[in-house]
């Protein structure tokens, strides 16, 4: 479902219009109200729907124009300005933080509207540079052009989404060894990833956890999906107490991720583990 449909609901329940004297008239279910009622119900995610639905003021304007089956070339500036302002006002009334671009557009629309009330401009001035309406129409046309192009671009079959490369393994081939990663390269790559996406604040991975992660991988490899393995056999005498702790943490971590299950046949009997997925009727540990 198009998230914009939800906006229509929002509009139906509460609308804001500019009145004849320029003041804002709030309407709820069509009835004008003097002030936005404090208990006016707005779906809590309506704001996010709004922000996510429009790629900016141009997109919002296009939406308003298209909704009325109007041609960009013949925008009724007064009407569109009124609707645009109504949207902005709703957002402001809801204390929604607006991107500055929306307000800039509001100012531009207001300016165009006022200019059109002025006497007809001298012809020589009436080019795109000086006529803000012309410039806006140009901008809208251009934006729509690329908006459509973007949609078409997304429809082209894309590698790894719609089509797949066919390749074969080269493991049997001989040749000079490929370059190995260096620690510097690896750290640099990791720093870039973290700067970009950030492994989110709650992932504080320390060296202790690294050893747990490593152990998780090795335990997972040893375990069978169909038969249980005694936990004790996963321990190495040479690792001592520290090794037991690491292995135990790894098992807990694997359990939490739903990758292994464990159990005891009776109290005080050895803890036994197996990889999940051996049977469909596996239970949560």
């Amino acid at each position: 479902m198009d998230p914009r449909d939800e906006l229509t609901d929002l509009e139906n329940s509460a609308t804001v219009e500019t009145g004849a004297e320029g003041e804002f008239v709030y309407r709820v279910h069509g009835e004008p109200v003097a002030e936005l009622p404090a208990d006016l119900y707005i779906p809590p995610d309506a704001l996010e729907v709004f922000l996510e639905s429009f790629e900016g003021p141009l997109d919002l304007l296009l939406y308003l124009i298209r909704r009325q089956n109007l041609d960009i070339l013949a925008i009724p500036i007064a009407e569109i300005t009124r609707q645009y302002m109504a949207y902005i006002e709703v957002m402001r009334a809801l204390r929604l933080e607006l991107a500055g671009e929306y307000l800039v557009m509001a100012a531009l629309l207001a300016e165009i509207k006022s200019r059109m009330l002025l006497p007809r401009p001298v012809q020589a001035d009436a080019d795109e540079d000086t006529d803000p309406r012309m410039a806006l129409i140009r901008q809208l046309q251009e934006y729509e052009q690329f908006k459509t192009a973007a949609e078409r671009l997304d429809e082209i079959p894309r590698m790894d989404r719609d089509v797949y490369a066919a390749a074969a393994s080269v493991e049997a081939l001989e040749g000079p060894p490929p370059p190995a990663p260096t620690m510097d390269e690896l750290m640099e790559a990791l720093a870039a990833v973290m700067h970009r996406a950030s492994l989110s604040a709650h992932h504080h991975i320390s060296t202790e956890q690294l050893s747990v992660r490593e152990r998780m991988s090795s335990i997972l490899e040893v375990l069978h999906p169909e038969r249980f393995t005694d936990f004790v056999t996963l321990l190495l005498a040479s690792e001592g107490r520290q090794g037991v702790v690491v292995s135990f943490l790894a098992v807990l971590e694997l359990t939490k991720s739903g990758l292994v299950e464990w159990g005891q046949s009776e109290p005080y009997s050895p803890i036994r583990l197996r990889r999940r997925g051996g049977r469909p009727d596996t239970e949560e540990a």
Partner: protein
Amino acid sequence: MNDVTSPDAPQAATELDTDTLGAIELAIEAVLFAAAEPVAPRDLKAACEDLGEIDQPTLDQAIGRLQERYADRAIELVRTAGGYRFRVRARFSATVQAAQPERPARLSRALLETLAIIAYRQPVTRAEIEAVRGVAVSSGIMRTLQEREWVRVVGHKEVPGRPALYATTRTFLDDLGLKRLEELPPLDAIRDLADVASDAGFTLAPPEDEANGQLRLEPAPDSDDDSR
């Protein structure tokens, strides 16, 4: 009955016996399957060096034979911007997806619009992209596009601040299965503003830049005209 020329006789590969042609075919096959990316014709020729000098008609012939050989198979040999590659035929996509359920995330509209502007307007600065979209382009989007190797910096515009100029890459075309930028769907035409102007009771000065609003796929060196 007088016509004795066989339609099968290759013109340029006359010196090559069937065995050699078969060997070339196998060599190309090995290289294409070993490569993760499309292989340029030049590199395919290099792979066959031991089998003698490979000219273009010979290569074309070998490629043609390979394509025919896989005509009934689940994969096909295609040509994209970067060269030749084997890929799984589209009708088997669903089968592959069933076996690889982890679908890549959808691209956001913001990213797609930015990509479209770069593709059709390249080389283009970030400010020029923002002028078209009417909103700021986040650094994250530009980085993602470059990470994906669809977009790269091709230079800097000689204006104050020397902003980076972005263009699409060969990988971008390869990923869309295109040979050239011209194969992208054409931009919708923008109707003449003079019509509106007369409707609205204004007259427009003659447009200075004829190319404005036209489909331009070639990098325009004078792109500063239409970017404000």
